[in-house]
């Protein structure tokens, strides 16, 4: 028995040393490298209402602004289609890049979930300080959890209340069963390599450091515990969660938990819509290998519903 234990411990030590020295093979064609960065870093005025209109007129201030936030390891690309679709609308969109994202692998590795959230808060407060009163938020995947966390933390108690909060495939419970053990095996794996196309490599990190998966787990666990106790929606805010029935990343149970745990001040429930879809973040169709009429219809349905509440 002693011999077995000794052999196992030696093998584990070797594995740990090898794993800790592992560095991903990052190329210049990947977002992870130091060549490609999210375009919002070069021209924030194309993405953020606060940057494009630093001195808004009264007419500007009367417009509704939707802050759109992307998911874990993604970039502003995730909401490009909504921005294009909304080009001629009466509302404006701020597509925020979560801090730690859209930069290098090392920047991503060093980021905490609070950093991810900071980008949403920063744009919200800039708009608030500029005098906007009609602000709504939409968050996909991890940003869905971040928006629920903002409600949980009582952030809106000391700020203007958002008119609407939309959640698209929010993650509170992962579909992947391995994610819940990432904290334990992560240090041995160092990073997770994702099977995605070369084109997707420009907009999503190809390598996902285990530290960031732990951060993701931390925030979704915090939100889940908050939902277990109950979270009250800011007064006057409309909330709706859209979720793909076959979501391969954010379990549909996430929306069940949000539905159970979120309540309006009058005790009523939020709105929920389950989409006939098997893709995660069904509102992003660009770069999908194939797009069915149903997926197009799902996207249009969600965009139209959001737009109706922003006009």
């Amino acid at each position: 028995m002693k011999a077995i234990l000794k052999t196992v411990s030696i093998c584990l030590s070797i594995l740990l040393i090898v794993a800790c020295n592992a560095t991903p093979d990052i190329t210049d064609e990947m977002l992870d490298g130091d060549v490609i960065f999210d375009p919002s870093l070069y021209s924030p005025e194309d993405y953020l209402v606060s940057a494009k209109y630093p001195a808004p007129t009264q007419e500007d201030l009367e417009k509704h602004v939707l802050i759109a936030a992307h998911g874990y390891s993604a970039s502003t690309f995730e909401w490009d289609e909504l921005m294009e679709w909304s080009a001629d609308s009466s509302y404006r969109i701020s597509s925020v890049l979560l801090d730690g994202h859209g930069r290098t692998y090392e920047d991503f590795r060093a980021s905490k979930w609070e950093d991810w959230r900071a980008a949403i808060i920063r744009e919200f407060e800039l708009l608030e300080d500029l005098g906007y009163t009609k602000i709504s938020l939409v968050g996909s995947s991890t940003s869905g959890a971040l928006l629920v966390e903002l409600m949980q933390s009582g952030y809106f108690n000391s700020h203007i209340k958002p008119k609407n909060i939309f959640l698209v495939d929010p993650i509170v419970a992962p579909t992947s069963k391995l994610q819940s053990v990432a904290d334990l095996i992560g240090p041995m794996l160092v990073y997770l390599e994702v099977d995605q196309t070369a084109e997707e490599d420009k907009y999503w990190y190809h390598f996902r450091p285990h530290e960031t998966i732990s951060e993701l787990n931390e925030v979704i666990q915090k939100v889940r515990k908050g939902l277990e106790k109950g979270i009250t929606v800011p007064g006057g805010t409309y909330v709706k969660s859209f979720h793909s029935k076959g979501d391969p990343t954010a379990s549909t149970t996430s929306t069940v938990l949000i539905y159970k745990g979120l309540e309006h001040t009058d005790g009523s429930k939020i709105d929920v819509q389950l989409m006939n879809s098997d893709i995660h973040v069904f509102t992003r169709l660009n770069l999908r290998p194939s797009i069915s009429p149903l997926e197009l219809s799902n996207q249009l349905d969600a965009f139209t519903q959001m737009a109706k509440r922003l006009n």
Partner: protein
Amino acid sequence: MKNLCLLTFLFCASFSIQAQQLNVGIRLQKTQQMYWENGISAQYSFANFKPDRLFVGFDFVTSRLGTAMNSNALKQDSYIFSGSWYFFKNKPYHLIGRLNTGYLNTDLEYDIFDELPSSSFLLAPELGFNYTPEKLPIALNLGLGYYLNMQDENKTPGTFQPLHYHLTLYYKLFNQEK
């Protein structure tokens, strides 16, 4: 719950006649990054076949007696049958190899979620440790198990996660002397 207790009692009673050892107890279980699910446990070994080495058992754990108690957590119940092998014969402590199988059901409560996955077949290998004080009719059992993927991951509820650990305190209801 009453029916379940009655069933467990009958289950135990029916085997006590031929059992070498029959233990019943309470089980406290935590799933990594998910719920506390607590419940009851029973296990026995046959008098005429590998006594005190081979145990078969039944466990019922539920989040109703754990995280879902007075909270918005989902109510989910697991029915687990197991076979265990106790290493280190005639010692007060044992290493345990166990294989669990069973069924998990999650109550999603609202009609709008009827189409969503709410159950899963369970299969989990487990490593454990048992300590049985020589002069007391109790046994303390620790286990670390991992549910294997038996279905597509998006066909099972998100509250079903693989890695779980438990502490079970048994009372030796029946222990036939050799």
